[in-house]
């Protein structure tokens, strides 16, 4: 590893100056110290990954809060996924064996996918998965779900649009 870049130094300064502020900020929203610690850590990890030059960040606290906020949303998203997963599990006729660790990884992955499909209804998601995972043609999907091909097409356009937005906006 070479000498620290100016970006690394900027992040370090941001971290020393504002970490405890960020923790307090997160504490207020979460009500739990341990979670706030984790999320504060994640916030800085995300800032390091984004590599957006920090010298043109005008309001560092607002910048931190924006990123921490998106992590909070992600957290709510994960809760929704977990709830859906628990419900799906309960609907299974047989007992289902899955370790806590496997479950954690699974929820993590599903949360990422959920972000990709942000805001799409269960019906559109179903159509999208039938096409993109199972490789069905639009006609086959229409037949299977008793829809018109036109409806399937519209759902696919919307799903692609949303995927695009979640990746590039």
């Amino acid at each position: 590893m070479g000498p620290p870049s100016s970006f690394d130094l900027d992040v370090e300064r941001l971290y020393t100056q504002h970490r405890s502020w960020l923790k307090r900020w997160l504490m207020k929203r979460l009500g739990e110290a341990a979670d706030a610690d984790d999320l504060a850590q994640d916030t800085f990890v995300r800032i390091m990954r984004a590599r957006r030059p920090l010298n043109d960040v005008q309001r560092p606290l607002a910048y931190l809060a924006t990123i921490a906020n998106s992590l909070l949303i992600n957290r709510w998203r994960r809760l929704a996924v977990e709830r859906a997963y628990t419900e799906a599990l309960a609907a299974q006729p047989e007992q289902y064996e899955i370790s806590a660790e496997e479950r954690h990884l699974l929820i993590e992955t599903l949360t990422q996918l959920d972000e990709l499909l942000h805001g799409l209804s269960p019906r559109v998601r179903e159509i999208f998965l039938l096409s993109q995972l199972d490789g069905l043609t639009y006609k086959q999907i229409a037949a299977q779900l008793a829809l018109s091909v036109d409806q399937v097409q519209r759902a696919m356009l919307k799903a692609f649009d949303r995927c695009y937005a979640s990746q590039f906006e």
Partner: protein
Amino acid sequence: MSQAQPISASVRQQAIAWYSLTQSGDITAEQIRELERWRQADSEHELAWQRMVGLPALLRNNAGVLGDPVARSALQQARYVSGDRRQVLKMLMGASLLGAIAWQNRESQWLQGGLADLSTETGERRRQVLDDGTELWLNTATAVDIDFNANERRILLRYGEINVLTGHDPFGRPLLVQTDDALMRPLGTRFTVRCGDGCPGTLLSVSSGRVAATLRHGRGQRVIDSGQRARLDSEGIVVSQPAVQDDAWIDGFVIAQATRLDELIDQLGRYRPGILRCDPRVAGLRVTGSYPLDDDERILALLESSLPVSIQRRTRYWVTVVPRAGA
């Protein structure tokens, strides 16, 4: 995850349409040649195309995970739903617990709501796809009339808040959104309109594309760009950059960024029946955070724990946020 090079909304739409066609299982040899020509016509086309091709990778890389039917079903169903709470409210209303509470302004809304083509109750959010493919989200306590005829597609927002993702009309009819204050014409777009639920005038907030707005009383016409918010009333059109995401409610959130407490309380009040007030002495406190709309009791508890305020409940439907004693 913004990328350096911007792609215009129309090229993006074309790329999506082309990509979707390649996935349909029904593309003709002639269409494939046409697609090649489209990609070569412009470097922006090609860039948009490359993005589309890369998109499903995340999904396909996780095909293994989704091979598990439980995981797949969870992904399909995962959403912030408001259904349960609504059931409870319905039950309570049936028991006419609300009779004693002052609901004057809501009464006329109920009447209007009953007559409107589409409407939602307090706390409810609903999505509707119109005949032309336009996607319409109705936020809490909203009533809308849909008037599609040979010349135009008109959405009349009587009160409340809607988010519109415009569909492409096969007959080329313009889409118009009308409120008491203004007539708005989107130019390929997603946007939110709110009026008549305690907010003066009409609020327009554009998340992608552009919307041309014309005042109905007084003069004024202006194109509102993506990322802008405008207040439209008889005084004129005032444009600002939105400080918060005006369409977060679609996902079941209200987002505050250094928002005044009374503004946040106003927002929350829209999602629950009865009266939710903020004492003027704490109105100016600032809050930041994302709050799930389906759990407003939790939000109140959070406010109470993070600010020098307490929640005073006269009845379940009359709640005031007041300064904490001794604070």
